[in-house]
């Protein structure tokens, strides 16, 4: 009995890992197989010959790099917006007392509870009125609106963990409010800012629905919609190219994630512990 428990636990954990990892592995394997091997039955687990031809085609013959650049601009700018606005908002919600502060905070969260589909059409009409339809900027604004509420709450819980006297001490020591923020609050908030930034970047990088509705010009399409419309048509799916594109799309996230992983996990635990 004593031995059974850890064995079962291990089996369970590893099946979970397998379940999650299999599509990823299959994606990578497929992207490396030559066209001739793709649909062979039974499938080959390890490609008989490895080829980078799909990657080469993707980069040289398709607008993949343009989509990639659009996505980078989109996700980066959104992240900057969200972190800047979120930090200022969280600072205000935590440090200043004013009427309706709590209501405001709840209201912000409430918008997060609305399904994004509900907001898409009004947002689209708004963008048209503003003359922003079919621009990358409209997508940046849209992504900012849906990432900001959560970011605000995340940053707020981080901010609440910073003792007010730290800032007071800096003020007494001769710092301005902005100086105190830069010298004292910001370094303390950095883990929170990094996890918020990661969260926002991933959200924006993977977002599909808004990109589909708000932007229909190929010139400003991000990776998600761009790759889809390029490789998937009603008659044909370019599997090998699609898999190569998917690998390249995941790459930036994996790299960033690997480097900042410890910050991110501390961010997800933030609401609980204050200190």
């Amino acid at each position, binding site marked *: 009995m004593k031995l059974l428990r850890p064995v079962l636990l291990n089996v369970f954990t590893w099946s979970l890992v397998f379940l999650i990892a299999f599509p990823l592995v299959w994606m990578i394997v497929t992207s490396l197989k030559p066209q001739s091997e793709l649909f062979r039955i039974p499938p080959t687990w390890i490609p008989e010959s490895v080829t980078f031809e799909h990657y080469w085609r993707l980069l040289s013959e398709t607008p993949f790099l343009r989509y990639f650049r659009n996505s980078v601009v989109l996700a980066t700018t959104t992240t900057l917006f969200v972190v800047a606005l979120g930090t200022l908002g969280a600072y205000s919600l935590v440090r200043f007392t004013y009427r309706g502060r709590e209501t405001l905070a709840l209201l912000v969260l409430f918008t997060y509870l609305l399904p994004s589909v509900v907001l898409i059409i009004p947002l689209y009409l708004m963008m048209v009125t503003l003359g922003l339809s079919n621009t990358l900027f409209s997508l940046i604004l849209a992504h900012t609106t849906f990432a900001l509420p959560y970011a605000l709450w995340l940053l707020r819980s981080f901010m609440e963990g910073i*003792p007010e*006297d*730290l800032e*007071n*001490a*800096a*003020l*007494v*020591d*001769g*710092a*301005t409010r902005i*100086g105190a923020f830069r*010298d*004292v609050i910001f*370094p*303390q908030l950095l883990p929170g800012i990094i996890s918020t930034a990661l969260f926002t970047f991933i959200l924006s990088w993977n977002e599909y629905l808004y990109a589909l509705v708000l932007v229909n010009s190929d010139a400003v399409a991000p990776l998600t919609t761009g790759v889809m419309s390029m490789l998937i048509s009603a008659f044909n799916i370019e599997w090998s190219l699609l898999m190569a594109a998917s690998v390249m799309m995941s790459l930036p996230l994996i790299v960033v994630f690997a480097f900042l992983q410890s910050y991110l996990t501390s961010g997800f635990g933030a609401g609980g512990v204050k200190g």
Partner: protein
Amino acid sequence: MANVIFKDVHKSFGSFVALEKLDLDIRDGEFVALLGPSGCGKSTTLRMLAGLDFPTSGEISIGGRVVNDLAPGKRDIAMVFQSYALYPHMTVGENIGYPLKKRGIKGAARAEAVQKAADLLQLGALLDRKPKQLSGGQQQRVALGRALVREPQVFLLDEPLSNLDAKLRSYMRAELIELHRRLGKTMVYVTHDQLEAMTMASRIAVMHGGHVQQFDTPDAIYNRPANRFVAGFIGTPPMNQVEGTVEGGDFVIAGHRVPIDRTAYSADLHDGPAVLGVRPEAISIGSGEGLPATVRLAENTGHETIVTLELPDKRRISARVEAARRLDVGQPVALRLDPAAIHLFEATENGARLNLDDTPASVIPMRST
């Protein structure tokens, strides 16, 4: 010139009144202690002076200039926070140097000042550590160092020695007194430790329930307490207070007469209920004539003995006798009180003192609840 004046200052947090009618006039270069039990409003007073909290009404001025609307950094003050408030990501050296950095002092001048403050506080070996790697007492000294590195107009110290061991505390007490003498700057020192207040301050503001009970020299606070709260707060053990009645030239406790000198008290003293106050050291324990009592406890501290005595009506008082004195528990004794050392108070919860030998400067009776 940096005197500090609180004029009719009130402070409430929502409906909670933290300070009521606070009037303090602190002279230039004076060392003033704010002394009182936890929650009496000491930190709030200091924070308002620093500009971190704002009075609900009233006026605060430093050096003749009203500072109600002046930013903390512009008041030329330094402060030790009760919570230390050390910057966690900076080293000890950077923490201490921060106020200098913010005032544009650079390079060697800054390093030298930091070193001097660190040496004074015996922190020299710790300059490269982060606050997290320090003990509580070391952190507190860093907080002190950050305040002492500059020479501001006013030093605000919120329980700066509370976390030090006895030896370091008495060393720091002496250092602070010396520093104050050398710099001649105004210091406002918050503490709930009466020994610190009595030994360091030129004047003490005893606070309780959001009121200043008495603002006077340590001598006056001890010998002429303005009311029952101050009498009961100062001294270890504090002044005995016994309820009874005044009848002619006597104070009657449970049917026994203690002679008093009526001429030593104000005209407000009428026959009737009052409270007698007497310090433990003004009670002599003998036999024969006197107020009868029974010894209940004798605690020998080495250089003196604190005796707990039970009066005929079961009330207990304490007396201080020399250590060599042998007293047995249960032993009946007779107490004699020196008439010159008897204080009389009004028979209210925080009754004012009725002795004639003084006119307390700022006596505000406690709100009766």
